[in-house]
């Protein structure tokens, strides 16, 4: 092992390589790693924050659902009340309508009956007159016996 100028050459080479590494390599890689570490820490914090706000939102949502449910129940109740009210009203209205229709029908029927009766009465009078004329076979003066005939017809 003989020592020679290679020592000097190697020393110079080492100085250059170390300088290069210190100047152009180490800071870049180290900055990158540190930046990534920051990013990861930030990301974890954000995730933590996110899950916390999610929890908060879930609580809020549960409250909202409860409120909505109550509101829905109220609406349904109100609708039921109003519906039964409408039904009752309609029922009353219908009853009244029925009453009216029935009354009108009764009146009409009565009127019809009266008219038929009048007509019948007239016909009975003329039949009675014709019958009586045929039975008596003697001309009865319709004009003279009108009062009698009318009385007869009213009695039928």
């Amino acid at each position, binding site marked *: 092992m003989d020592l020679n100028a290679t020592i000097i*050459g190697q020393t110079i080479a080492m100085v250059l390589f170390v300088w290069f590494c210190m100047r152009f*390599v*180490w800071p870049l890689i180290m900055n*990158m790693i540190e930046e990534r570490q920051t990013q990861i820490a930030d990301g974890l914090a954000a995730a933590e924050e996110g899950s916390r706000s999610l929890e908060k939102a879930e609580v809020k949502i549960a409250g909202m659902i409860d409120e909505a449910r109550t509101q829905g129940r109220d609406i349904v109740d109100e609708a039921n009340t109003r519906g039964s009210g409408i039904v009752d009203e309609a029922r009353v209205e219908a009853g009244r309508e029925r009453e009216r229709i029935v009354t009108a029908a009764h009146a009409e029927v009565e009127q019809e009956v009266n008219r038929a009766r009048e007509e019948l009465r007239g016909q009975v009078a003329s039949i009675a007159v014709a019958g009586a004329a045929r039975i008596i076979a003697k001309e009865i003066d319709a004009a003279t016996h009108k009062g009698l005939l009318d009385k007869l017809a009213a009695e039928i």
Partner: protein
Amino acid sequence: MASAGAQTSSEYIQHHLQNLQLCKTDAGWVWNECAGNFWAINVDSMAFSVGLGLGLSILLRHVAKNATISNPGKLQAMIELVVGFVDTSVRDTFHKENRLIAPLALTIVAWVFLMNLMDLIPVDWLPGVAHLLGVERLKVVPTADPNITFGMSISVFILIIFFSLKVKGIGGFLGELTMQPLSPKELGVPKILWPLVMAFNFILETVALLAKPLSLSLRLFGNMYAGELMFILIALLGLWQLPLHFGWAVFHILIITLQAYIFMMLTIVYLSQAHEAH
């Protein structure tokens, strides 16, 4: 021993452990006849060392430039793993603010690892290729060349001295060398004997200080040299080399990684000590 030809075993081993050298003599630039000449250059060590360092730098620069935060590729993930590992090691050991230590540690661990990794290439391949290209000597593993390991440890040593002086000042640094481990004040020796104690301390501390770069480089060199020697010896065994080479290579993966890690870790520790006042 593909390229051994008519060599004897010891010639084969010798041949594999010689660097390709270039030096200037009176007759001009010559190859491989540089014994005893300090101004010789081990061309193969330098070429592999600088080549691997360049490759490493380009790779790291490429990854650093194209690094994305949210969509890292596999290569980026691997580099980040290494960078994160080095960063953790530095932060665990070194508590002061210093922009140099971490990149230094990264360069050392990755570069030394790559240079050690050359040991896993079968010992005859690259020298065989070089032989075909007309180059007679080639030592492939730069860290099995003490010049390379000393070059690195001396750089670290200079940094140790520099940061010691910068943090503690000349007085503090000299005090550290002379006033411990035996403190003349606490010993209660008369003032006239203080220089004696201080000289004793100075010898101890200087040895301790110089032992740092020495042990740093010799540990790496020794491990890699021995590992390479084992590979060469195994390559002499004919067919038996196949299972043995595999076994030793698997074991050597551990050594390669461990030595790179130890070199980095000790560098951090030494520089950390240089920053701490006693």
